[in-house]
């Protein structure tokens, strides 16, 4: 039945998502699904226990909403407070189809833009629902007191974002993520006070408990005491964000990791489209060897900032203010006249790399190490210039729009963007891949729900700006609280899991064994050292541009590095205390395995789409070239066992409401 392909993976059965009711038009499916779902009566809800892992926009919103409904919720997160989840760092804004600007926006247009932006690799049903509930999110957040930008008439202000031609983005200066997260956090803390939610701070989920094929709980490590505990429930929701830190340098928070979803994958949950990584075009370039992470600047800067590099490589070390207009190449405006500086992220990122690869990058030349550790000197930066905007709008107006971003840029780089153009370069930012879920956001393990960035469902191969916040909140506030009822109603009849089930003790034992094995390591290299090495392999071979031979090389190198880890790593400190080296080591082990799967997925998808650019598949103009005849599917990978190849299940993508087109922003 299964065939080993390329020596790397097995071909498995096709899968399908059957939960969206296709007997009604797309605009009625969500309403219909909600109506068909079973309900749990209010008095019974307190008998049901739900675990939510993560407290970001998806997790915080889900835990708060499920708590409001009356379920018993336990919410786990690794930070010291629920308010610190990495959603907080999102700057630019949140999309919603309110059409407050009267510029032709609609649910259908948001749906269309999102599917097109994702390069036709997202599921229509899910994206339509996302666009539909987007308007409710704004209502919800305004009612919570989220201080969105306002106009003098007292109504909400909007701006536009990359990849679209309408103003549908709601924002709170450059801190939209923070303000939305604080809204969800406050709703969550309200439920803590009401006693429906219990928070477990500084707790990391290290294993999923599956009994009789159903998700029944998790194993956690208390990061302060080292204590390992099991927590049982009737359903488990993972809202643990993305896995961009597999690249070591990324815009993700230091603690972002893949462990929760990877543990679920190893327990049978499918992992979909792992290779889809979004590289964000407006990050502050790397400044040195010891850099621990990269800092993103809001893409909204592209509304008024113009991106350029010198036309001639010999001008690259000049003061940019001394380069006359005719010697500047505003390359996005030149290549993509219709969208200009507002092309989607994948396109803006790749063009910035092309300019630097051509030798027209700007900023200090920095030492670059390729995956083999060879050094080279490169200028990795392009200008993001506000001089035109300052001339047109005045310094004060620019400051009102972007002041805090300018301040942050200056603090980090020491340059004043009011005087000298900013320098930007792409960096790993968001992962579109994640655990496979159906229309209900349920994984293929019954009772295991996955929401926000941790699932794969809504962004296809590329995410449009201001859509991440929208998806996190849509999933958390409006989708899960409705779809989970259906499952929980069944669980009411099914009854509680037997606490003596052998799977529970076995899950716990596997965690204890792993900790013990890690603490026994007596090598010479630190965990960070290995993580950096893994990051270099991934950025070089599975980063902005992928090739067949490079990906094969990467798989070999990742395997060798993992072996080296077990031979030569050392973990300081003790297991039963606050031990940051141990935390990182556990996460790195999962990153090793995920990195390999990302490369296999990237290798098998011999087409370019969105954030996945295969050098072998491009148009004569160098744009991403899809192969819809061969790859119009979600690649959902199943764990094949320790040291066994993974199994590929394809879910066909069916486009009935949107016509498939080659994406063009020209």
């Amino acid at each position: 039945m299964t065939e080993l392909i390329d020596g790397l993976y097995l071909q498995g059965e096709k899968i399908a998502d059957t939960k969206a009711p296709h007997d009604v038009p797309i605009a009625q499916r969500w309403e219909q699904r909600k109506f068909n779902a079973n309900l749990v009566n209010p008095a019974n809800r307190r008998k049901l226990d739900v675990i939510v892992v993560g407290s970001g926009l998806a997790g915080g919103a889900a835990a708060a909403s499920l708590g409001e409904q009356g379920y018993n919720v336990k919410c786990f997160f690794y930070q010291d407070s629920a308010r610190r989840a990495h959603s907080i760092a999102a700057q630019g804004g949140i999309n919603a189809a309110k059409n407050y600007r009267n510029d032709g926006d609609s649910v259908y247009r948001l749906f269309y833009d999102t599917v097109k932006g994702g390069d036709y690799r997202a599921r229509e049903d899910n994206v339509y629902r996302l666009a539909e509930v987007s308007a409710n999110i704004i209502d919800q957040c305004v009612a919570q007191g989220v201080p969105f930008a306002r106009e003098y008439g007292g109504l909400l202000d909007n701006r536009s974002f990359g990849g679209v031609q309408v103003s549908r983005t709601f924002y709170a200066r450059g801190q939209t993520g923070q303000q939305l997260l604080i809204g969800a956090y406050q709703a969550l803390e309200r439920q803590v006070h009401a006693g429906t939610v219990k928070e477990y701070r500084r707790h990391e989920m290290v294993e999923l408990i599956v009994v009789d094929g159903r998700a029944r709980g998790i194993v956690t490590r208390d990061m302060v005491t080292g204590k390992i505990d099991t927590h049982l429930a009737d359903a488990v929701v993972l809202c643990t964000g993305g896995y961009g830190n597999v690249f070591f340098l990324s815009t993700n928070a230091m603690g972002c990791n893949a462990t929760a979803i990877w543990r679920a994958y190893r327990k049978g949950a499918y992992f979909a489209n792992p290779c889809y990584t979004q590289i964000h075009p407006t990050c502050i370039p790397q400044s040195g060897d010891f850099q621990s992470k990269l800092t993103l600047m809001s893409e909204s800067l592209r509304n008024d900032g113009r991106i350029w590099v010198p036309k001639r490589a010999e001008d690259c070390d000049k003061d940019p203010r001394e380069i006359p207009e005719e010697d500047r190449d505003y390359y996005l405006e030149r290549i993509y006249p219709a969208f200009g500086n507002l092309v989607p992220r994948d396109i803006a990122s790749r063009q910035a790399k092309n300019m630097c690869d051509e030798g027209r990058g700007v900023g200090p030349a920095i030492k670059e190490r390729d995956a083999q550790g060879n050094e080279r000197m490169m200028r990795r930066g392009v200008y993001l210039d506000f001089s035109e905007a300052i001339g047109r709008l005045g310094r004060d107006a620019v400051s009102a729009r972007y002041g805090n971003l300018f301040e942050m840029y200056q603090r980090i780089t020491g340059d004043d963007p009011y005087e000298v153009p900013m320098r930007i370069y792409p960096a790993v930012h968001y992962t579109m891949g994640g655990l496979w879920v159906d229309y209900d956001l349920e994984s293929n393990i019954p009772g295991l729900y996955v929401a926000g960035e941790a699932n794969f469902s809504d962004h296809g191969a590329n995410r449009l700006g201001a859509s991440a916040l929208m998806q996190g909140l849509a999933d958390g506030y409006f989708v899960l609280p409705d779809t989970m009822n259906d499952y929980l109603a069944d669980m009411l009849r099914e009854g509680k899991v037997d606490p003596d089930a052998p799977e529970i003790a076995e899950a716990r034992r596997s965690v204890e064994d792993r900790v013990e094995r890690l603490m026994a390591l007596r090598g010479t290299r630190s965990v960070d050292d290995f993580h950096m090495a893994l990051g270099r392999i991934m950025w070089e071979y599975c980063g902005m541009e992928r090739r067949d031979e490079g990906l094969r090389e990467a798989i070999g190198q990742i395997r060798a590095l993992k072996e080296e880890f077990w031979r030569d790593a050392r973990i300081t400190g003790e297991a039963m205390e606050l031990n940051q080296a141990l935390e990182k080591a556990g996460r790195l082990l999962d990153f090793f395995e995920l990195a390999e799967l990302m490369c296999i997925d990237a290798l098998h998808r011999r087409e370019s789409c969105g954030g996945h650019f295969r050098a072998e598949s491009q148009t004569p103009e160098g744009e991403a070239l899809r192969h819809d005849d061969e790859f119009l599917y979600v690649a959902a990978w199943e764990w094949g066992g320790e040291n066994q190849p993974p199994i590929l299940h394809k879910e066909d993508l069916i486009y009935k409401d949107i016509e498939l087109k080659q994406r063009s922003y020209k």
Partner: protein
Amino acid sequence: MNIKLKIWRQKNQNSKGHFEEYSMTGIEEHMSFLEVLDLLNEQLFAEGKEPVAFDSDCREGICGQCGVVINGQAHGPIRSTTCQLHMRHLAEDPSFKDGSTITIEPWRSTGFPVLKDLIVDRSALDRIVQAGGYISVNTGAAPEAHSVPVQKDKADAAFEAAACIGCGACVAACPNASAMLFTGAKISHLGLLPQGQPERLARVVNMLNQHDAEGFGGCTNIGECAAVCPKSVPLEVITRLNRDLGHALWKGQKTTA
């Protein structure tokens, strides 16, 4: 540059802490302060010693997880979060010379017990929010967003207060270890908006009761809190808190459950 770091080391909440000194060479100006600590930890690792535990997460100045007292000042000499402090900022101080000693301590407050080295427990701040730092609206029960206009200057002022990241620097800087700037920021954020009016008076009473129960001190208008606040939350949020409190007491506002 070469520097010496004098760092508070403490095994756990129950043990006594002490300072230890470490020498570092080859520090570059563009490095962030936390990257210097990363580098120190690599150095300690190579020497077979245990790295220094410290908190950080987003390293973009917004999550509020980082925060230490540097040379006696919360988050160090410039108004920023610890993660956005760069060595160039320290080097700008005229008293800073090659080989200078930088002293690093955890947040100092009884409300923030030390968990290990530079890491403290700030869950008390969450409990203050739990006592009423929200607007009670159930998911899905919200009116259309444009049905309640908000005056632009009020919205801007609310935003200024809402910018608080809950890092706790205000507490660490205050001689009374008061969390009034934090509490006032939330009360101002919600109290300035029309949506926040129904619970306004109960909110201030409930949150302040919790503030006091957590062992934070009272405010005596010293202003250190606002001076160190990395998000420039203005001192007037405390004035607004006091005004709301006075109003609540005059109205005979009782705490709510």
